[in-house]
C-alpha cells in the first residue's frame, strides 16, 4: 500500500462556503486524497458533491463502500451513513434515523488516525458543536497533522467546531481556510526533503530552552523519541535546519508550548495489555481491599496518566470489585501527568468510538453513556479519579498508596532518571503495596526493593524489610526560578553527587588499596588494578591473559597452587613470604586468592602485597589515645549520629505532611475545575435554550397573526354564505358535501350535520334526475346551466354547476348554485299571456270600431272605405302579432292587400324582392298606403279589368344608409289621364311617407298606367333587411 497522505475534512453549519473556498485554493496536482465528512440530516439528498465539484478540477464523488482513496480525488460522505477507513479503503455503513450518528467527523478522523498514522491530515472547518475535537486528538497522537479554520474577514461562519478543537490543544495549525491548502502541500513536500541526521549536541540547545522555558527536563528522554518529535515540529513550521528551528523556539513562546505538547503525547488505551489487567483484576485488586472496612481508604496513584484511559481502566476494576462488597472502603485514585491539556481531556472523560475498543461491551454498557458513537464515562467512575498536574521527577510524591501504576513512562527516560524514580515509588507505597510497570520496563538494579509477583506482566510488590536507602530528596526548583537559567548544569545535583562519591571511593581504593587482579575460573585475567607491574610481567610471544603466564617466574608455582586450592575448597587460599626476583632485587610477596561468587558466576580475586613484618605491641601501644577522651568522642559521635537520624526522621515527617497538604490542595483544585466546567456547560445550555426560546416566540407570533387572518377570512366567508339567498353547495371529488348555504335547505333535506355525506344520499325536492350526470360532466372543466323546477312544479330555478378549482388549478370538486327564477318565469309567462291578451283586445277593439262605424254611418262609399281601412289595420295587427309584435314581412303585407283583388290564379299580380322586415309603426303605416294603392287599382286601375296586372318589385340599394326602393307598376288598365291631387290616399302617399318614414314617394303615370315609387332610408327603427328565409312564417297568399 503506497504511503500517500489522506486529508480528512470535517465541516457543519457554514461548511459549504468554507469547503468551496478550500477547494478553490487547492491546486489540482496535490498528490493527496480528500475525504469530506459533514453533518447531514438522514433523509435529505445532499448536493455537496456537485457543489464541491464546481470548485475544483479534481473528480468529486460520493463515497462508496470498499473504494480505495486515490490521489487527486475527493470523496464526500453521503447522507444516512458513517464513514471509516481501513488499509486505505473507505468503509461505508448505512445508518437509519434510529442510530443517527451525531459525531461522524470524530468517528472518521479516529479511524483515519489509526489507519494512516503520520500520513493522516485532519482539518476542522466551520460548524457548531464540538465534533472533530476528539478526532483531531487521535490524529495528533498517532503522529498526523491537525489543522483548524482560523478567523478572518470571511469566516468561519460558525466558529464553534474549530474553536473547540483549538481549545483542546491538539491543533498544529490555525489558518484562514484559503491559506490551508498551500501549507499542507508544503508540509507534505517537505517530508522527504527533510534532513534526518542531526548532531546530538545540536539538540542540547533545545533541551536547555525547554528546561528554561517550561521547567521540564527532557534531557533524560530517549534521544530517538525526542528527535522524532522535534523533527515533526520542524516539518509543521517548515524549518529546514535545526538552527532555524531553534531560532523560532527562541522567538516564539507558542512554538515552545507546541513542542512540549508533542513531546508529551503518548498513545493511550483502555485496558492496555489485557493480560496485565487480568492479573491485576484477579490477584491484586482483591488484596487491596483485604481487611478494609467502610472507614478505610484504598489509595491508588497512576503516574503519567495522559488522557486518563489507564486511570479509568483501574477505576473500573476497583468499582467492579467494590460492588461485591458489603461495606466498601472509599477509593481514591490520583492520576497525574505534566500535560495540563491532557488533564482537561481526562476530566471530561469523553472518548470517541475506536478509543473504547479495549472495553468489553458489558463494561461499556455499565459504565459509559453512549452519545451516538462517543462514550462519556459515568459520574460514579469520574468521581473516583482526581486528575492533577504533577511531575514525578520534580514534585514530591504521594504517600501511603496501595497501588501505583507507572506504565510506559520510564521507557521515555534515561536509565539514571529511571533509577531515581523506582526508589521514589518504593517510598510512596505503603507496606506490601503493589507496583505496575509497562511490559518493556523493569525495576532495574532495585530488585531488592520489589518482589516480582508476575514477572511477565510486570506486577511487583513492595519489599518492606530493606535497609532504607537514603531518600532521594533533592533540591526542588521553586517555580520562580524557572525563568532564570539553572547554572548550566544538565544533570540533577543528586546524580552528580552519587557519581562523584563513586569516583572518590575509586580514587581512595586506587591510592591506598592493594594491588590485585580478577581472574575467571580458567585463570584468564578479567581486570587489572593499578600497580600490577611489580608482580606481573608481559611475557614474550603472542599476548596472553593467562595469569600464570603473566606472573613472574618465582610467583608462578605458588600462584598456581593457591588458585587450585581456592577452586577446590571454594575458600580463601593464602601464601606468604614468596620471594620474587625483579629488576634490582628480590621482593618478598604475600598472595591471597579469594573466590567471589555473584549469581552463578565465580571469579577469583588475587591480591598481591609486599610482605610487611608484624609490628610489635609496644609500637601499637604508643599510638593509643587516653581512654577517657576516646569514650567522650565516641559518645559524642553516637549522639551526633542519633541526632542526625532524628533530624532525618523529622524531615521525612514534615515532607509527608507537606505532601498531604499538597494532595488536598490538588484535590480541591480539581473539584473546583470540575465545578467550573459544569458551570460553563450549564451556561451554554442556558444560552442555547434562550436562543431557542426566542426563535419559538418569533414563530409563535407569526403563527398567531396567520391564525387571526385565517379567522377573519373564515368569518367573512361565513357571513357571505349566510347572507346570500342563492342556494349554493360545495362538493368534493367524491360528491361529498363540504359546505352549503342556508337557502339550500329549501331544495335538499339538509341539516348542518350533513357535512361529509355524499349528495346522492340525500333526497331532493328538485325534478332533476340528471343531476349526478351533469355533476360528473362538469369535472371535465365546463360549466353547465339548466332550468329546473321543484317536483311539485311550484318554483323554478336556474341551476349552475361549476368546477371548483383548487389553488393549484386542479379541479378539486364542484360548486352547485340554484337561482330562484320563479318570479322571472312567472313574469315571462305573464308577458306572453299579456301580449296575447293585448293582441286579442286590439283586434277586438278594431272590430268594435268597425261595427260602430257600420251601424252609425249611412251606407255609402265613405263607410265602405272606412271599414275597409279598419280591416287593413286589423290584418296588419295580425301579421305583427304572429311575429310577437316584433316585425312583419313587407311581402306578406303586400300579398295580404293584393290577394283579395287578384285573379283566381293570382296571375295578374307579382310581388318580388329581397326579404324586408318592417317594424310595427312602419308596417302599420305602409299597410294603409298599400291598402290605398290596392283599392285604387281594383276600382280604377289595372285590377279593375281583365288583362290588367300589377307588378310590385323592390330592391335594397346604396350603402350609407342603404335604401329600400319599391316600384308599384300597373299595366293594361284603363288610361288615367290625371291623378287625383287630393284625397286621403294621395295625401297619405305624398306627405305621409315623407313625414313618417322620412322617405320620398312619387305617383306618376306611364303609358296611362299608374307608377308609384317609394324610396325609404333603412332606419333600423323601421326597417331591417333579413337574410334568413326561415324568418318567413306566413304562407304566400294564393299566388
Amino acid at each position: 500500500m503506497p504511503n500517500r497522505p489522506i486529508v480528512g475534512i470535517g465541516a457543519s453549519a457554514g461548511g459549504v462556503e468554507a469547503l468551496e473556498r478550500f477547494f478553490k485554493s487547492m491546486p489540482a496536482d496535490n498528490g493527496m486524497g480528500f475525504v469530506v465528512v459533514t453533518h447531514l440530516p438522514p433523509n435529505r439528498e445532499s448536493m455537496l458533491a456537485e457543489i464541491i465539484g464546481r470548485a475544483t478540477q479534481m473528480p468529486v464523488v460520493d463515497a462508496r463502500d470498499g473504494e480505495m482513496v486515490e490521489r487527486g480525488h475527493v470523496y464526500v460522505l453521503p447522507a444516512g451513513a458513517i464513514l471509516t477507513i481501513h488499509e486505505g479503503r473507505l468503509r461505508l455503513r448505512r445508518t437509519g434515523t434510529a442510530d443517527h450518528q451525531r459525531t461522524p467527523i470524530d468517528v472518521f478522523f479516529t479511524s483515519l488516525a489509526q489507519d494512516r498514522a503520520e500520513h493522516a491530515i485532519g482539518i476542522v472547518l466551520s460548524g457548531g458543536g464540538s465534533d472533530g475535537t476528539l478526532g483531531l486528538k487521535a490524529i495528533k497522537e498517532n503522529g498526523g497533522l491537525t489543522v483548524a479554520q482560523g478567523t478572518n474577514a470571511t469566516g468561519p461562519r460558525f466558529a464553534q467546531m474549530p474553536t473547540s478543537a483549538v481549545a483542546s490543544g491538539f491543533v498544529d495549525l490555525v489558518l484562514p481556510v484559503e491559506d490551508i491548502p498551500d501549507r499542507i502541500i508544503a508540509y507534505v513536500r517537505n517530508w522527504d526533503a527533510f534532513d534526518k541526521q542531526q548532531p546530538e549536541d545540536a539538540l542540547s540547545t533545545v533541551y536547555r530552552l525547554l528546561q528554561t522555558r517550561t521547567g521540564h527536563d527532557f534531557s533524560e528522554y530517549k534521544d530517538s523519541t525526542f528527535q522524532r518529535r522535534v523533527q515533526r515540529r520542524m516539518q509543521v513550521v517548515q524549518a529546514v535546519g535545526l538552527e532555524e528551528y531553534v531560532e523560532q523556539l527562541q522567538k516564539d513562546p507558542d512554538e515552545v508550548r507546541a513542542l512540549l505538547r508533542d513531546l508529551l503525547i503518548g498513545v493511550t488505551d483502555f485496558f492496555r495489555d489485557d493480560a496485565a489487567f487480568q492479573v491485576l483484576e484477579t490477584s491484586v485488586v482483591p488484596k487491596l481491599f483485604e481487611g478494609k472496612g467502610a472507614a478505610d481508604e484504598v489509595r491508588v496513584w497512576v503516574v503519567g496518566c495522559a488522557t486518563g484511559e489507564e486511570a479509568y481502566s483501574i477505576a473500573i476494576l476497583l468499582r467492579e470489585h467494590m460492588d461485591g462488597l458489603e461495606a466498601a472502603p472509599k477509593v481514591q485514585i490520583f492520576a497525574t501527568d505534566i500535560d495540563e491539556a491532557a488533564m482537561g481531556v481526562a476530566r471530561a472523560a469523553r472518548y470517541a468510538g475506536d478509543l473504547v475498543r479495549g472495553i468489553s461491551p458489558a463494561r461499556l454498557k455499565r459504565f459509559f453513556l453512549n452519545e451516538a458513537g462517543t462514550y462519556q464515562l459515568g459520574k460514579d467512575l469520574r468521581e473516583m479519579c482526581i486528575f492533577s498536574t504533577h511531575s514525578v521527577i520534580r514534585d514530591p510524591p504521594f504517600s501511603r498508596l496501595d497501588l501505583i501504576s507507572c506504565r510506559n513512562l520510564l521507557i521515555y527516560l534515561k536509565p539514571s532518571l529511571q533509577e531515581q524514580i523506582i526508589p521514589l515509588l518504593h517510598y510512596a507505597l505503603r507496606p506490601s503495596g503493589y507496583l505496575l510497570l509497562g511490559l518493556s520496563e523493569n525495576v532495574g538494579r532495585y530488585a531488592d526493593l520489589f518482589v516480582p509477583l508476575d514477572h511477565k506482566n510486570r506486577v511487583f510488590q513492595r519489599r518492606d524489610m530493606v535497609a532504607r536507602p537514603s531518600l532521594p530528596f533533592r533540591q526542588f526548583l521553586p517555580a520562580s526560578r524557572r525563568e532564570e537559567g539553572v547554572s548550566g548544569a544538565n544533570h540533577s545535583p543528586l546524580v552528580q553527587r552519587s557519581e562523584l562519591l563513586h569516583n572518590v571511593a575509586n580514587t581512595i581504593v586506587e591510592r591506598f588499596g592493594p594491588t590485585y587482579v580478577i581472574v575467571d575460573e580458567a585463570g584468564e585475567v578479567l581486570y587489572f588494578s593499578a600497580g600490577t607491574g611489580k608482580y606481573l610481567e608481559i611475557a614474550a610471544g603472542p599476548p596472553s591473559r593467562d595469569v600464570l603466564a603473566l606472573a613472574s617466574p618465582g610467583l608462578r608455582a605458588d600462584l598456581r597452587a593457591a588458585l587450585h586450592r581456592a577452586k577446590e575448597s571454594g575458600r580463601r587460599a593464602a601464601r606468604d613470604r614468596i620471594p620474587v626476583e625483579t629488576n634490582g632485587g628480590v621482593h618478598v610477596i604475600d598472595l591471597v586468592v579469594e573466590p567471589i561468587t555473584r549469581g552463578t558466576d565465580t571469579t577469583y580475586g588475587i591480591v598481591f602485597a609486599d610482605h610487611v613484618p608484624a609490628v610489635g605491641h609496644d609500637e601499637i601501644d604508643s599510638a593509643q589515645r587516653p581512654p577517657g577522651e576516646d569514650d567522650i568522642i565516641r559518645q559524642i559521635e553516637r549522639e551526633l549520629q542519633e541526632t542526625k537520624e532524628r533530624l532525618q526522621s523529622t524531615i521525612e515527617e514534615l515532607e509527608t505532611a507537606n505532601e498531604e497538604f499538597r494532595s488536598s490542595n490538588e484535590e480541591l483544585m480539581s473539584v473546583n475545575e470540575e465545578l467550573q466546567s459544569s458551570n460553563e456547560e450549564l451556561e451554554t445550555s442556558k444560552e442555547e435554550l434562550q436562543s431557542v426560546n426566542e426563535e419559538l416566540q418569533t414563530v409563535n407570533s407569526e403563527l398567531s397573526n396567520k391564525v387571526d387572518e385565517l379567522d377573519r377570512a373564515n368569518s367573512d366567508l361565513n357571513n357571505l354564505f349566510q347572507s346570500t339567498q342563492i342556494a349554493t353547495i360545495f362538493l368534493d371529488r367524491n360528491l361529498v358535501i363540504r359546505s352549503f348555504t342556508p337557502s339550500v335547505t329549501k331544495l335538499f333535506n339538509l341539516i348542518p350535520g350533513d357535512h361529509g355525506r355524499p349528495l346522492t344520499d340525500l333526497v331532493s325536492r328538485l325534478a332533476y334526475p340528471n343531476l349526478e350526470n351533469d355533476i360528473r360532466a362538469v369535472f371535465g372543466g365546463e360549466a353547465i346551466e339548466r332550468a329546473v323546477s321543484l317536483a311539485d312544479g311550484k318554483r323554478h330555478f336556474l341551476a349552475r354547476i361549476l368546477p371548483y378549482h383548487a389553488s393549484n388549478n386542479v379541479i378539486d370538486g364542484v360548486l352547485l348554485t340554484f337561482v330562484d327564477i320563479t318570479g322571472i318565469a312567472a313574469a315571462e309567462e305573464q308577458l306572453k299571456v299579456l301580449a296575447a291578451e293585448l293582441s286579442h283586445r286590439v283586434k277586438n277593439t278594431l272590430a268594435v270600431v268597425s261595427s260602430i262605424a257600420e251601424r252609425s254611418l249611412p251606407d255609402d262609399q265613405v263607410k265602405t272605405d272606412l271599414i275597409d281601412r279598419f280591416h287593413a289595420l286589423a290584418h296588419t295587427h295580425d301579421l305583427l302579432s304572429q311575429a310577437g309584435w316584433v316585425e312583419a314581412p313587407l311581402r306578406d303585407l303586400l300579398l295580404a292587400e293584393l290577394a283579395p283583388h287578384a285573379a283566381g290564379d293570382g296571375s295578374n299580380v307579382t310581388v318580388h324582392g329581397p326579404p324586408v322586415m318592417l317594424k310595427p309603426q312602419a308596417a302599420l303605416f305602409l299597410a294603409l298606403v298599400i291598402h290605398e294603392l290596392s283599392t285604387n287599382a281594383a276600382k280604377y286601375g289595372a285590377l279593375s279589368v281583365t288583362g290588367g296586372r300589377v307588378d310590385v318589385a323592390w330592391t335594397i340599394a346604396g350603402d350609407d344608409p342603404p335604401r329600400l326602393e319599391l316600384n308599384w307598376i300597373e299595366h293594361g288598365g284603363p288610361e288615367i289621364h290625371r291623378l287625383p291631387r287630393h284625397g286621403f290616399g294621395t295625401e297619405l302617399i305624398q306627405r305621409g311617407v315623407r313625414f313618417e318614414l322620412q322617405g320620398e314617394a312619387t305617383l306618376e303615370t306611364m303609358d296611362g298606367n299608374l307608377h308609384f315609387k317609394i324610396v325609404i332610408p333603412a332606419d333600423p327603427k323601421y326597417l331591417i333587411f333579413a337574410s334568413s328565409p326561415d324568418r318567413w312564417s306566413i304562407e304566400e297568399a294564393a299566388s
Partner: protein
Amino acid sequence: MTEALQGVKVLVVEDEYLVATLMENMLASAGCVVAGPIPRLAQALDAASSEACDVAVLDVNLAGERVYPVADILAQRNVPFVFVTGYGVLPGEYANRPRLCKPFKMADLLDTLSDIVKTAPASH
C-alpha cells in the same frame, strides 16, 4: 272658447302622420298658427329652442324616442305644453304636467290648450 286660441302659436310634435295632420287641421281651424308638425326628436329639439311659440303639444313617444328633452327646453323657456300619450302614467317630474290620453277628442285638445293659454303668464 276657441276665441282664446286665436293667433296662438302652437308647436306640434307628433310622429303619427294621420294624427299629426288632424291636429294641424283642427288647430288651424281654431285660429292657431301651427309650427310643425315635427315627427322626430332631433328636429323637435331645434324647434323648441328656436321657435317662438305660446304653447306646445308633445307626443310622448316619437318613433321610439321620448319627447322629454323637448319638454325640458320648453320648461326652461317658460313655454307651457301638454303631453299626448298612449301610456297611462308619466314619470315623476312630468307627472303633474297637463296631458291627454290617446285617442282624444279634438274638443278636449282645444279646451286644454285654451286653459293653458289663459292661465299662462305673458310669455317672451
